[in-house]
């Protein structure tokens, strides 16, 4: 298929989907708004480095803490780096960390939840007990504990955040599976001798997907915020890449001397990114929640 045909077929699916979302009222608008924000952020991440007017890492001691101007529309940092360029390039690492952590979370939490709830019995009870204990624990504290033991780095931060959210996937999947498990069509499938993995993946899993998507979007938002939080505490990435969380943290010291721009722009970007995911997640969960539908 030619590129044009592929594009057309994707659009053919996406556009009616989007218009039906708009018709669904405020919840639908939330999802669309969220998707626009997230897409814009991703695009910015991708083209950022090429569009940035200055080198985001290059520091210049003569340009320390300059307020926003024509040359530096968002001012400069305490190291004389151009804020705008850092903003354009700073989302990338944050997206990487959150994407990685959501993936790990998903790949562990969902299969575990499916398997555990399907198998049932002692295994399921034991798993649930452990998962519930993790779930009840303050997330940031877990992330801190693991991060402190593993040390700095992108992978380590992603892993420590991932552990916190595995229970969310597990619980959502498990509750869905438990409610579906006893339904007749699953019994019927077992009756005709379908193997358990077929039952799980062809019957149970498709029903679970909507809830997982909702959890994943909220997970993304949380991952972004937790990553920023860990950086703020000092368990950051340790690499010298532009990072919104890092700028927010280092800019804090200069706030009282009036250099408001160093923290404001990174802060707003983090809020925007988290907001984008949250809007999608909340909008979707409202659309999928039958109780609120009239």
């Amino acid at each position, binding site marked *: 298929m030619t590129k044009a045909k592929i594009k057309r077929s994707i659009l053919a699916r996406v556009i009616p989907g989007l218009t039906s979302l708009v018709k669904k009222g*405020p919840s639908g608008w*939330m999802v669309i708004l969220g998707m626009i924000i997230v897409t814009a952020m991703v695009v910015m991440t991708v083209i950022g480095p090429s569009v940035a007017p200055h080198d985001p890492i290059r520091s210049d001691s003569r340009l320390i803490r300059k307020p926003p101007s024509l040359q530096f529309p968002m001012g400069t940092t305490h190291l004389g780096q151009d804020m705008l360029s850092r903003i354009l390039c700073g989302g990338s690492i944050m997206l990487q960390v959150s994407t990685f952590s959501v993936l790990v979370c998903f790949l562990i939490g969902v299969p575990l939840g499916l398997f555990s709830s399907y198998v049932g019995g002692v295994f399921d009870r034991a798993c649930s*007990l*452990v998962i519930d*204990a*993790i779930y*009840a*624990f*303050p*997330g*940031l*504290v*877990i992330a*801190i*504990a*693991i991060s*402190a*033991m*593993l*040390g700095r780095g992108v992978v380590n931060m992603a892993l420590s955040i991932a552990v916190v959210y595995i229970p969310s996937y597990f619980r959502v999947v498990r509750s869905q599976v438990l409610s579906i498990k006893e339904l007749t069509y699953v019994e019927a499938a077992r009756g005709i001798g379908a193997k358990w993995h077929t039952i799980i993946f062809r019957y149970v899993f498709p029903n679970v997907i909507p809830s997982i998507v909702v959890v994943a979007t909220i997970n993304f*938002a949380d991952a972004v*915020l937790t990553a*920023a*939080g860990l950086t*703020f*505490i*000092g*368990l950051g990435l340790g690499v010298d890449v532009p990072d919104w969380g890092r700028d*927010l943290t280092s800019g*804090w010291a200069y*706030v*009282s001397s009036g250099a*408001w721009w160093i*923290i404001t722009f990174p*802060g707003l970007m*983090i*809020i*925007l990114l*988290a*907001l984008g995911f*949250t*809007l999608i997640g*909340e909008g979707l969960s409202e659309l999928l929640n039958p*109780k*609120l539908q009239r």
Partner: protein
Amino acid sequence: MGLRSYIITRILLTIPTLLLLLSMVFLVMRVLPGDPVALHFEKRATPEQMESMRRALGLDKPLWAQYLEYLGGLVDIGYILDHGYPNLGRSMYQTSEEVGGQIFSAFPATLELAIYSMIIASVIGVLLGVASSKSYNSISDHLIRGFGTVTYAVPIFFLGIVFQLIFGVYLRWLPTSLRINPAVDPPATITGLYTIDSLLQGNLLGFFESLKALLLPSLTLGIILSGMFIRMTRTNMLETLRLDFVTAAKARGLKESTVTYGYALRNAFLPILTMMGLQFAILLGGAILTEKTFSWPGLGTYIVDRIDFRDYTAIQGAVVMFGLFVTLVSLVVDILYAYLDPRIRL
């Protein structure tokens, strides 16, 4: 079943949960790759120095022995009676210091912050949630929901810094750090909560000063947390307002406020209360960030400092403390729930 037997059963159930929790903390802190002592010294010490620290902290014993010592320390009643706090080992940074003591002296500050933040979050959350549900699909409903969504996406420390900027630096109305104005003496310790202690002693100056210092941090944490509460209250209220007994109450000509609060909210409140209890864990996470922002000398600051010092026994102790705190709160919430809902007990 009766309330009393429910309470007893519930307390007994806490024990296995606690055990699990403590074991998991031990797992993370000791079993994960990384030798705490080596990490502490960052490889800048001689093997003898590392070995002597290991011996001093009991880290040279086999893992299962350490595990038993760890659990044993926590239930060592004699130690608790002697010191007033459980045995959580000694600090790596200052090997003569008892971690338990340090934690217990830092804890009240966090408790006070948590209580006030929870109050602010609940009040804002419930009031706005109720208002939002009553005016379903109106502009104020959308605005309130928008507020709730946005607050969820704001990093706590960012809001804290903004508040510090506005109220502390530009307007100079409120202090931006510490629990009380350094010029004023802190109240004598009864509960450890400055506001309560100063009230109990009739120390009005102390009360106001500590309240002023509490205001920004608890407002920050409270506002961020309220987003969740608004949404929960609104959803629960919307469901409850549609139930038959609410319409039946209106059909009897009862006052609007009676129906909203006495019928709808009172019934919607129970699931909200449980959610609030679960949110407590998130509150503690937020408290750590808030404490760092406002230099609030609580458990959060303690754990953050200890990370800098690479003091792993202290970090472990603090994590245990957080876990204990959350378990206790969820216990209290469950009992409260049973007390408020007659159907659970019978």
